[in-house]
């Protein structure tokens, strides 16, 4: 029978890995992810989870161990955060090229320096192009369930996937959690069948040298499988509802059907945005929410369908790509580009480095959206001493320093 417990997001992630019957766990502790590793090491030590726990000296090695384990046919799991995910970067590519369906939980935190352990999407979004699937959890429940959902799809398309959850807001906050019945999860997620069996009697090298004649085709297949994963996430999310009681989708709308003004959000801050939408509706403003759950593969068609024809769209980014804009805003603009019914997309950068994104913050964004005529790439919300707006117009761009004339 399912259990109902009060648990933090980190412990929920550990339960997710356990319910998924992860067979090899290799991780390196890092704040704010440490509790995941601690609980999983306890669960394996006690025998409650039948898995091999491999301690390593770095996140790079943690992912390398997962790569080896997955290649050998084991369901492999790891968790990390911020600098740790950055250190894994090379091995993240390896998992994609070797077509290994590893699942990773990233407790998103801001990148150093300045040294910060607080919530921020920059770490995970910096891995946008490695070829991992990416899901953004909003709740403790999702921190657990998305691991199971992700394995279900990853092992079909032989691509790895990561689940992002917000530092502290989810990782260290306890919420009621339904821990699913193991038999039901087993029904949903059968054992992992690897692409190739590693046999010591017949030693082979996997992922060896590929010349210019052949690499492109291998990568093309990665793209094809990522494309296929888009539909499989929908189907597997549906199945999750049938077998485990809650249906998941790559996108989630709230009061969206007749909304003129749509706020787009991802991750834990969405809960506050949702509350703001409720408030706005009471005031008679036709506001709505679109929550992005699947970031890779990006649900381009559904985004077009959900946002086409709206009066204005505001995208809340807890990240920013210096030199461009918030990354969600950029992705959504690009999905809508050239569509005849494309709404203007206003990019709002909020909550950088763990600054709170409150219900009031969402109201401030909506107030600005209603009166602002021109969509901007980036509108900064809450920079001290500055109103909501683009880069300040009175900022003096200093000319190039003159060269010292050599005499």
């Amino acid at each position, binding site marked *: 029978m399912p259990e109902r417990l009060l648990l933090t997001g980190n412990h929920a992630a550990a339960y997710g890995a356990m319910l998924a019957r992860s067979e090899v766990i290799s991780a390196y502790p890092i704040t704010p992810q440490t509790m995941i590793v601690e609980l999983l090491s306890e669960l394996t030590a006690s025998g409650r989870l039948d898995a091999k726990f491999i301690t390593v000296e770095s996140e790079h090695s943690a992912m390398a161990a997962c790569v080896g384990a997955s290649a050998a046919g084991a369901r492999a799991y790891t968790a990390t955060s911020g600098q740790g995910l950055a250190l894994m970067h090379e091995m993240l590519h390896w998992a994609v090229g070797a077509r290994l369906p590893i699942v990773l939980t990233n407790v998103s935190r801001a990148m150093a320096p300045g040294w910060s352990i607080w919530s921020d999407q920059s770490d995970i979004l910096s891995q946008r192009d490695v070829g991992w699937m990416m899901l953004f959890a909003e709740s403790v429940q999702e921190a657990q369930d998305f691991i199971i959902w992700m394995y279900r799809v990853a092992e079909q398309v032989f691509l790895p996937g990561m689940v992002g959850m917000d530092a502290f807001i989810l990782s260290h906050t306890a919420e009621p959690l339904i821990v699913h019945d193991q038999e039901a999860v087993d029904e949903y997620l059968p054992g992992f069948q690897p692409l190739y069996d590693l046999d010591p009697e017949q030693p*082979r090298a996997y992922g060896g040298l590929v010349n210019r004649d052949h690499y492109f085709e291998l990568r093309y297949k990665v793209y094809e499988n990522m494309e296929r994963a888009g539909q499989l996430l929908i189907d597997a999310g549906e199945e999750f509802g049938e077998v485990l009681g809650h249906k998941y989708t790559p996108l989630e709308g709230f009061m969206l059907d007749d909304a003129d003004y749509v706020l787009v959000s991802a991750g834990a801050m969405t809960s506050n945005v949702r509350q703001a939408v409720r408030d706005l509706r009471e005031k008679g403003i036709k506001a709505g929410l679109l929550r992005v759950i699947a970031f890779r593969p990006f649900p381009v068609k559904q985004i077009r369908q959900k946002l086409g024809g709206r009066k204005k769209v505001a995208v809340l980014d807890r990240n920013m790509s210096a030199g461009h804009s918030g990354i969600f805003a950029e992705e959504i603009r690009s999905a809508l580009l050239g569509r005849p019914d494309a709404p203007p997309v206003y990019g709002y950068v909020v909550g950088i480095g763990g600054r709170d994104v409150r219900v009031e913050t969402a109201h401030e964004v909506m107030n600005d959206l209603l009166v602002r005529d021109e969509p901007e790439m980036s509108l900064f919300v809450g920079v001290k001493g500055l109103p909501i707006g683009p880069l300040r117009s009175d900022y003096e761009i200093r000319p190039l320093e003159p060269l010292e004339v050599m005499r």
Partner: protein
Amino acid sequence: MSGLDHVDNYPEIPVSLAATSTVLKTGAWRSVRPVIRIRTAPCSAYCPAGISIPEYFDHLKEEKLDEAHSVFMERNPFPRITGRVCPHLCEQGCNLAVATDEKPLSIRSIERWLGDQTADLPHPYPTEETGKQVAVVGAGPAGMAAAYYLRRSGHKVTVFDRRESAGGILRYGIPEYRLPTAVVENEIEKLEDMGVEFRMRLALGTDLKLEDLEAAYAAVFVATGATGQRSTGIEGESLLEPGLAFLEAANRNLASLPGERCAVIGGGNTAMDVARMLQRMGAKVTVLYRRTLAEMPAIEEEYERALEDGVDFNWLTQPRKVTKLGDKLLVTVEQMRLGTPDESGRRRPEPTGITRELRFDGVFSATGEKADTAPFPDRLRDSHGWLDLDGDGATKDPLVYAGGDLATGPATVIEAVVAGRNAARAIDAELGYADRWPAEPPADTVSPAEVNVTYMPHHDRAEDPPAVTADPFAEETNTLTAADVLGEIDRCLSCGYCNTCGTCFVFCPDGAILWDNGPRIDHEFCKGCGICVNECPGHAMVLVNEREVSHA
């Protein structure tokens, strides 16, 4: 590489087929492997005889003259002769000319040097006599080549010829200044020394009957050439002097000039030889040719030398009528123009109706010779009267073979040599010895796009230097020096043949090429990066899919 031409045939990830141990050395990364492979150089592919040119060059480079000579002799026994008169199609094929802006390798001149260096090297006496006797009729290049290969194979060979001396067109057709008689005689002596019997002054059809030869010999090869004069269709033809007969008379020192101003009709090699010989005898020669230089079949080099000798060329000039006017000949010629291409691909000359008259002391025809097939019974000829032959020169009669100009009409010396060799091989097989001939060169030819010219030395092409002599009939060029030959061979990319240049050894980034008198690929460590294949100047290496060479 087979199987990987469509994305659907690709695996999800590259997996090596097998490693030799669980300790995976870098060789296990490999999905393709370099293989040192003998491929055909374009020079060899263009050579009618298919001589393994980079191979004998490599032996010359190593100063192994005997090995070079024996490689050559597998396909052509007369380097001294073809080294002088061959149209060297090999050089047309040379990858250097396409892959660089340099001139092709001077292959014929190296061949000539090889021939001269080995002039005194006797042909090997056959190790085992078969006891079979083969008759060869015609002692020209085809007959001589057939005699060489048949004798070398252990058969007794008797060569018959209608003239008093052997050599055929080599002795009686090609002028002395291009091919000295001494060179031809040297080859005949060497054939005699290996046991070939020459019986002269016996003509097929009169002194010899084909059926008598068939009765007396295990096989007969007929190569009596093409010396019959083809009708020119010119009114007053009897006033023309046949060009080939003139060349024979000149080679016998019996020719005399009809006067100072001479004309030669035709644009082939015989026309060039006649014109140049006349010019050297003191005449002022004009070649009358009905098409233009672009369509002229003569070897370009011979045309250029004719120009150097002072020969004049009248293009688009078709003689129509020759009449006698006192002691002069009056030639009425019609101006032609080029029309649509004919079956040979050359533009056809069309009459314009405009005529003029030219005056000469003598007019020579060199518009092509024809073969005399009269000695052959009808059953061996096709409906056009040509001999009915397969590719090796076999007639419908299993004992009778034919080849050379007799079969093809006027062609080159090397083509006659190839015909002689092919017939010898076919006769040898017919007599029960099919397996002792080398395989034909592989069809896989190295293309100009594959070669790497980055590391080749750049210097002028070595060509036969002009001879300094006052005698217009002495050989007009000299043979290269050994130093020139070795320098010229340095320019050779050695297409498709590993000449142990060491480029792969130098460039392998993994030290996976070992050196045992030549490259050896260490498959324990070769990652299959393909750099060696790209760097190999002559592309004597190829990448093959590991699946094709390794166990599954």
